[in-house]
């Protein structure tokens, strides 16, 4: 029974995918959307069932479905593991997934390929569930690559625009760089422990005795995989470009779920990372730097979705910071709250874009507060949450990260704090530019301003509520999440007793957030500043606006050399190699030409050659005869 339910949980979105692929075109758009949504809701409900069951007996549920790949030292089966971590992820993946599916029914209604959209979305949920529920690394890898594929398909959903396709391709390829790291990490682990199964690995690693260098290598490689999927330095540049996809996609894949896969994986393998402090340090530094750099880029972006994208990168950086300190539960906490408010923000921005018929540039927005009150209020709540204002969800989770940072490393703490001040600033900049003062768009657009339909606003409201109360799952003191995750995490983490120390840190964080907000307020409300047109941006601002020219740098350092090499190979080396082969033939030809000259038809010459040859042969025979 449980097996069947687990299979249903896994396969339900896949059924939705199949339906939409084969019949989606025949049924009406609403039906295809409804079925797509329903299948995800089924998974969500089942996740709740399993969750309730786990809460009761605390026993993880693990089954092996069939043998998959076998190599000489171990067999890999295709198995499902439903434990605390995977169920937690399942809950918010399918939960937020259902909301976003619901939202998409309305959002994508005018698109002729809506059934495809839902097919891909369902496929994504399926792969995401696979990623989460797999009982070994390789099954996770299926999901890992699968969500990458869906991300590719959905970023390039409007495939007629080659820029979007480029963005999709970029996302896929950068992810694949990480995937190679993941693969290598798996190879190292498999070579060391002859298994990829989590439970077996945990015991095996627990026994110790493994080569520390190899363990470090494995951890590093896995982390490289995580940087690809979770958009960390140096592989983060694909995520802002990924905003080319439809907004629900950005909300679901590039904010709430897929990009957290890296955190999931690191948390999953926490017993490995705990043994490799050097790698943990690297993770922490990478996370902090990512948070800072992405936040600073976000300061000056004018595309509403780009701002959110950099915000996502920055928040992911904070989560990795926590992971680097071994505070897995804190990272998971932030993942969950972040999923709530970031999804809400993206959906809200989608609602705005929907209302403005595709306009994404904040310079052409403004004053939408009155026209779109629900969107405004839900987004406002989420913005407060992400800025870390008490008592919204983001406050609690972010505060914990900062506290952990403070404990371990003061420098990283400062960096993270600066990043969160920046976050507060750019988020409120976004809000002010979008919703306050007068509308700056065309008359035509102004005329059509309207609040979005209820299918769009309901998910917004739900998510906004969650953004308010989400912090409750791990309030200091009660710390339900910490307890819940205890069986998963190898190392025990001490509770933060709420002393003065902690209150002071909370106060500092809150003050920082308020400083950021006031700064934004002064600049965009009081002064009424509107960002300049692209051409007028100068100086350091220009560097930031152009994302520190990192894309250009990558193009210059990696893409161009490879393309140059490809051109060199194609135009120079290939023909040269071909010529080498041909030269054998040419040599034979030359020999023949020379040989032909001997055959000149001169009988006298032939006779000479003949006689001399006879003499030579006779002499040879004679000499060998004598020698005997």
């Amino acid at each position, binding site marked *: 029974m449980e097996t069947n339910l687990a299979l249903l949980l896994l396969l339900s979105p896949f059924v939705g995918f199949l339906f939409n692929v084969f019949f989606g075109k025949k049924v009406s758009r609403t039906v295809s959307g409804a079925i797509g949504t329903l299948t995800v809701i089924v998974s969500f409900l089942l996740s709740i069932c399993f969750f309730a069951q786990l809460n009761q007996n605390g026993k993880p549920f693990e089954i092996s479905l069939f043998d998959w790949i076998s190599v000489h030292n171990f067999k890999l089966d295709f198995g499902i593991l439903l434990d605390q971590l995977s169920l937690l992820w399942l809950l918010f993946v399918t939960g937020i997934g259902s909301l976003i599916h619901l939202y998409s029914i309305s959002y994508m209604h005018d698109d002729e390929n809506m059934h495809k959209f839902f097919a891909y979305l369902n496929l994504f949920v399926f792969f995401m569930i696979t990623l989460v529920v797999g009982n070994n690394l390789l099954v996770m890898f299926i999901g890992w690559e699968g969500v990458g594929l869906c991300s590719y398909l959905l970023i390039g959903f409007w495939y007629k625009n080659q820029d979007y396709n480029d963005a999709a391709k970029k996302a896929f390829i950068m992810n694949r760089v990480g995937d190679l790291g993941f693969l290598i990490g798996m190879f190292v682990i498999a070579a060391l422990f002859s298994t990829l199964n989590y439970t077996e690995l945990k015991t095996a690693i627990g026994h110790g005795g493994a080569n520390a260098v190899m363990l470090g290598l494995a951890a590093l490689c896995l982390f490289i995989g995580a940087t690809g999927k979770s958009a960390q330095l140096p592989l983060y540049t694909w995520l802002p470009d990924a905003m080319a996809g439809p907004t629900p996609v950005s909300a679901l894949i590039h904010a709430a779920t897929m990009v957290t896969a890296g955190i999931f994986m690191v948390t999953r393998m926490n017993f490995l990372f705990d043994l490799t402090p050097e790698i943990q340090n690297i993770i922490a530094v990478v996370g902090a730097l990512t948070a800072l750099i992405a936040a600073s880029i976000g300061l000056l972006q004018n595309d509403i979705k780009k701002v959110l994208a950099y915000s996502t990168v920055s928040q992911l950086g904070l989560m990795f910071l926590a992971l680097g300190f071994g505070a897995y539960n804190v990272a998971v906490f932030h993942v969950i709250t972040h999923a709530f408010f970031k999804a809400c923000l993206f959906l809200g921005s989608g609602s705005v874009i929907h209302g403005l018929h595709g306009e994404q540039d904040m310079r052409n927005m403004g004053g939408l507060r009155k026209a779109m009150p629900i969107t405004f209020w839900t987004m406002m709540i989420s913005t407060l949450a992400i800025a870390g204002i008490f008592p919204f969800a983001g406050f609690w989770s972010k505060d914990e990260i900062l506290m952990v940072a403070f404990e371990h490393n003061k420098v990283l703490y400062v960096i993270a704090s600066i990043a969160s001040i920046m976050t507060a600033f750019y988020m409120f900049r976004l809000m002010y530019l979008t919703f306050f003062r007068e509308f700056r768009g065309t008359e035509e657009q102004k005329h059509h301003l309207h609040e979005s339909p209820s299918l769009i606003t309901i998910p917004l409201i739900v998510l906004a509520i969650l953004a308010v109360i989400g912090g409750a799952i791990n309030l200091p003191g009660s710390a339900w999440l910490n307890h819940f995750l205890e069986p998963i995490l190898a190392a025990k983490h001490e509770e933060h007793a709420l002393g003065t120390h902690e209150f002071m840190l909370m106060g500092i964080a809150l003050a920082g957030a308020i400083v950021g907000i006031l700064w934004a307020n002064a600049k965009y409300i009081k002064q009424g500043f509107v960002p300049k047109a692209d051409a007028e941006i100068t100086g350091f601002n220009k560097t930031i606006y152009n994302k520190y020219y990192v894309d250009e740098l990558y193009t210059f350092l990696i893409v161009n050399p490879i393309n140059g090499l490809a051109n060199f190979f194609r135009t120079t080396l290939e023909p040269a190699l071909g010529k080498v082969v041909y030269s054998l033939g040419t040599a034979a030809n030359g020999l023949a030409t020379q040989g032909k000259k001997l055959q000149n038809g001169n009988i*006298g010459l032939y006779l*000479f050659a003949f*006689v*001399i040859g006879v*003499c030579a042969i*006779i*002499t040879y025979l*004679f000499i060998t005869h*004598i020698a005997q």
Partner: protein
Amino acid sequence: MSPILITFYFLAAITLATAFLTIYSKNPIHSAIYLVLCFFSIAGHYLLFNAQFLAIVHIIVYSGAIMVLFLFTIMLMNLNKEDEVHKPRITRLGAIVVFILTSIVLVTIFINSKTIMGDYDTSGEDFQSIKKLGNVLLNEYMVPFEFASILLLVAMIGVVLLSKKEKTEKK
């Protein structure tokens, strides 16, 4: 020196001299005549061996038939003039060098190989009379003998065909 040895040297000298002159004369007719002399001297050698049958056949076939053919051909081609251009000097030099080389090689080989000295067997049997040869030819070598006749026949037909005027090709 026995008379026989003197005869041998005499004949050998004639053979070599005429053979050389055959090649050396500029006029083909002269060459042919020297060649006839050469053949006759070789027939003399055969007689020295007491091979009468061969000597006769040799004179008939070579001096009679083959040389007549040569002479006829020379006359047919009207080659009795001394109009032949000699080969380039280098070729002639080369020919001489090769001649010497070949001679040296062959002579050295025969010198170096086991020379047979002293008494030679004399079985006393008759082995080269016409009667004996006829027996051998028509018993043991009957088939090759018949083939030789076929060869000559074919050669004859071939010659006729070859020397026929090729009317069809000219058209």
